[in-house]
C-alpha cells in the first residue's frame, strides 16, 4: 500500500516538474535574445526583420509565446529548425534513433562491464584488483571525454586506419531498409550480416569513448554495494551453511548488490545522454547531441528548446522508472518505512 502511495505521489509530481522545466527552458531562450538571428542579415530592413519575427509569433507578448510553444508541442509541432532546415519534429526521431543506439550500446557495455568489474573488485577488497579497478573508476570519472575520444580517433582512425567514423558506410546503408532507424536492428531485420557488421564496427570507438566513464560509474557503485553486502550477516550465514564462496558471491551478495546498483542506471543514463554531445561531435555521429551542439553555435533555438525539454523529460521518466523498480526490487525499502 505504501508502495502505491509512493508511486502515485511520484506520478503526480512528474507533470509539475515537466512544466517547471518547460518554463525554465522557455525563459532561458527568451533571455538569450532573438531566436531568429539565424535568418537575419544586415541587408534586411526593419520591416523585413519584423516580418520574420511575425512569422515566429515573436511580436506577441512573452506569455502568449509560451502558450503558443506549449500548444505547438501538444500538437506535435516543435518549431522549425534553422540548422536542419526542416521542422524539428521531422528530424528529431531520426536523430533520436542515432543517439539512442549509441547510448544503449555504450550503456549495455558499461552495465555488464561495470558490474563484472565492480564484482571482481568488491570481492577482492583492498587487494590489487580492487586498487586497479578503483583507478579505472576514478580516472573514468575524471577523463575529459572529448580528449579521450580524439586520442582514440587519432590512433585507430588516422594512424592505424582500422576504425571508421560516422555511423555507417553510405553504400551499405543504402542497401537495406531502415524501419527502426537503429542500424543494428535494421540490419538484423534485413538479415544482412554485412550491414550488421558495418553498424557494429561503426559503434565500437564511440561506445568505448562514451562507455568508459559510464563503466566507471557502474563499477564504482557495484563495488561499494558489494562491499556493503559482503559485510552483511546473511553473507556469513550463507557461508556458515557451507556454500561455496562462488555461490555466496553470485547468488547472495552480488544479487543483492545489484539492487542498489539499479539506482545508478538513472545517473548513468544522464551521463550517457550528456556524453553523446561531445562523442557525436568527435565521431561525426549524426545524432541529437551533434545537432544540439550545432544548434547552440548557430543559435537554433527551436532545436535547443526541444532538446533540453526532451532530454529532461526522458531523464525524469527514466529516473522515475528506476526509482519505482528499485522500490519494488528492494523489499528492504518497504520494510524500513
Amino acid at each position, binding site marked *: 500500500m505504501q508502495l502505491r502511495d509512493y508511486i502515485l505521489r511520484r506520478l503526480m509530481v512528474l507533470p509539475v516538474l515537466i512544466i517547471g522545466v518547460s518554463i525554465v527552458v522557455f525563459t532561458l531562450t527568451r533571455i538569450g535574445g*532573438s531566436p531568429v*538571428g539565424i535568418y537575419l542579415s*544586415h541587408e534586411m530592413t526593419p520591416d523585413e526583420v519584423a516580418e520574420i519575427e511575425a512569422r515566429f509569433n515573436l511580436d506577441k507578448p512573452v506569455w502568449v509565446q509560451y502558450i503558443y510553444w506549449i500548444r505547438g508541442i501538444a500538437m506535435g509541432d516543435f518549431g522549425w529548425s534553422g*540548422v536542419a*532546415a*526542416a521542422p524539428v519534429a521531422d528530424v528529431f526521431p531520426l536523430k533520436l534513433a542515432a543517439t539512442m543506439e549509441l547510448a544503449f550500446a555504450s550503456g549495455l557495455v558499461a552495465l555488464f562491464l561495470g558490474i563484472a568489474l565492480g564484482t571482481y573488485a568488491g570481492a577482492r577488497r583492498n587487494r590489487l584488483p580492487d586498487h586497479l579497478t578503483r583507478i579505472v573508476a576514478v580516472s573514468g570519472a575524471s577523463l575529459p571525454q572529448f580528449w579521450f575520444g580524439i586520442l582514440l580517433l587519432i590512433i585507430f582512425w588516422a594512424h592505424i586506419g582500422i576504425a571508421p567514423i560516422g555511423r555507417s558506410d553510405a553504400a551499405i546503408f543504402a542497401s537495406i531498409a531502415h524501419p527502426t532507424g537503429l542500424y543494428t536492428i535494421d540490419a538484423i531485420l534485413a538479415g544482412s550480416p554485412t550491414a550488421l557488421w558495418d553498424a557494429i564496427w561503426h559503434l565500437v570507438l564511440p561506445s568505448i569513448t562514451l562507455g568508459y566513464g559510464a563503466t566507471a560509474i557502474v563499477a564504482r557503485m557495484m563495488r561499494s554495494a558489494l562491499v556493503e553486502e559482503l559485510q552483511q550477516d546473511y553473507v556469513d550465514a550463507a557461508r556458515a551453511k557451507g556454500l561455496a564462496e562462488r555461490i555466496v558471491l553470485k547468488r547472495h551478495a552480488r544479487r543483492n548488490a545489484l539492487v542498489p546498483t539499479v539506482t545508478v542506471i538513472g545517473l548513468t543514463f544522464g551521463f550517457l545522454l550528456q556524453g553523446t554531445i561531445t562523442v557525436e561531435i568527435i565521431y561525426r555521429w*549524426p545524432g541529437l547531441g*551533434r545537432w544540439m551542439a550545432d544548434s547552440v553555435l548557430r543559435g537554433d533555438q527551436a532545436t535547443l528548446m526541444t532538446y533540453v525539454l526532451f532530454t529532461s523529460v526522458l531523464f525524469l521518466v527514466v529516473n522515475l522508472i528506476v526509482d519505482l523498480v528499485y522500490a519494488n526490487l528492494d523489499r528492504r525499502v518497504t520494510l524500513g518505512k
Partner: protein
Amino acid sequence: MTTTGWRNGLQAGIAALALALAVPLAATAQVNNPGLLVHAADDEPTTLDPAQVEPGEGGETVILQVYDRLLDIGPASPELIPSLAVAVPSVENGGISSDGMTYTFMLREGVTFHDGTAFTADDVKYSWDRAMTMDLPEGNAGALSDVVASTEVVDDMTFRATLSEPSASFLNSAVVSMVASIVSQDAVEANGGVEAGTPNPFMAGNMVGTGPYKFVAWNRNENIQLEVNDDYWGENAKLDVRIEIGGDPDVRVLGLRAGEFDTIETDPSFIADLEGVEGVTVYSGGLLLEPLHIGFNLNIPEGALPSEDTIPVDFFHDPRIRQAFNHAFDYEAFLNGPLAGFGAFNAHYTPIGIFGHDPNAPVYSRQNYAEAERLFREAGVWDEGFTVSVITEEGNLFALMCLVLKDSIERLNPKFRINVLAVAESVFDDAHAQNPLEYAMWAKNADPAADPNFYMQAYQHPDGEWGEVHGFANGYRDAERVASLIDQAAVELDPAKRAALYSELQTMLYEDPMWLIGAQEGVVSAHRDWLMGFAMQPLWPRPSLKFAFFDK
C-alpha cells in the same frame, strides 16, 4: 635562477618526444570510393530552396550542382557562357535591346527536369516570379527584384525580362546568381505552390532541377547525396556525389589525408597540415573578392555599448583614431599566421582583381607603432587609454583577425584594451542586422562582387548601405567629396577616367579609413591526387567547385 635554465632542460627532453610522436600518417595508394565523389563541406545548408538561400550560405553549393540557370560561368574564365539559354544576350545578337532595358533569352530545346517534365519558358518566368513574389527576407530575391520590372514568356522557348533601369551588371550579378535558378513549376505547384513571405518546406528540403546532378537525400547533420543525371542536356557528370556535412575542420583534414574525402572545404590556416602529404594536392591561386574587414561604428546609440567599453560614442568620429588603428594592426602576423601566407594586403575597398584597383595607391600593410602612437596621442586618448569591444563570429578567421587586433593594440599601450566577443553565428547575425549597430566594432568579410561600384556603394558611400548604418557622414573629413567621387565613378563610361576616379578615392580613403582590412584572403582548396579535372571558379558560390567536371 632564471626560468630559462629549467626550460632548456625540458626542451631537450620534449623535443625527442615530439620526434617520436609526430609520425607521418600512412598514405593510401589506391583510389577510394570509385565512382563516388566525397566532398567534406563546412556548413550544413539551412535550405536548398534557391528562393530562400542566403548568399554565401552552404545551400548554394548544392543548388549550383542540381539547378541550372540561364547563363553560367565557366571554370576557366569569368566570361559568361550559355546554359539553359543557348546564347549570352548581347546588343550585337539582339538579346539586349538598344536602350539596355529588355533582355531576351533563347532557351535550350529538349531539356527535362529531374521529375521528367519538360523545361519551357514558363518555368523560367515561374522561377523568377516565384523568388520575387516570395521575397523571403533571408533570401536574395532583391538581386532580381531590384532590377527586374517584369518577366514575360514570348513563346515556349523564349523568355524576356524587362528591367526597371539599365544595368551593366544584370547578367553578371542577377542572371547567374543562385536565386535565379530554374525550378520545376510542376514540382512546386504540386508541393505547396507559391505564397508571399512564406518559405516552402518542400523546396527547402528537396530539389527538382535540370542540372547535371539529381538530388537523392539529405540526411541532416550527416550528408547530402546527389546522383548523376543521365539525361543531362550537356556533358554528363561522371561521379555520384556525397557531401559530408559538419565535421570539424581537423576531421576534414584527417579525412582527406586518409583518403576518405576527395575534396574538402578548408581555410588557409589548415593548408600547412596538407602540404607535402602524399596523395593530396593543395590548390591555391588568386584571391577571394571578400576582404576581411573590421568595421568602425560612427553611429553608436547612447548607452548601447557593452558595459566594459569606456569609449565615448563618438570615438571613431576622429579620423586619426581610425588611422591609428589601421597603423597599429599587425598585418604580417595576420597574413603569415592565420592565413598561412595565402592572401594579400589590400587595405581598401577596391579589391585586387577588381577593375579600378590601383596597385600604386597607398595601403596599410605594415604595423607602424610610431605613427599609431603619434595619432593616438594627437587624438588625446594615449594617456587615458580605452576599452572597446569587437564582436565577431566564433571559431573562424574573423575571430583570429580580432585577436591580432587585440594583440596589436594592447601591446602598443597596455592602457588600451580590446575585448573580443566571439559569439554564435546567429547572435552575430542578429547584432549585425541591427540599425543602429550596438557595438563599436565588428569583424567579418565583405560580400563579393564583380564591379568596384558595388564595394564603393556598400562600404564607403556616406549614403550607402554601411555608410548609413555606421554614420559615415559623421566622420569623413570630406563626406561630400567622397560621395561625389563614388557617384561620378558609377556613371563614368570611360574606363581610364573611371580608374582615375577610383585611384583618387583609394588615396583619399587611405587617409580617412572607415574600415580596417586585415587582408584579402587567398583562394585555397585541397583534394586527392586521384581526382581528375579539378577546377575552381571563385565566382561560383564557395567552395567554388562544380562536381560535374570531376572524375577519378
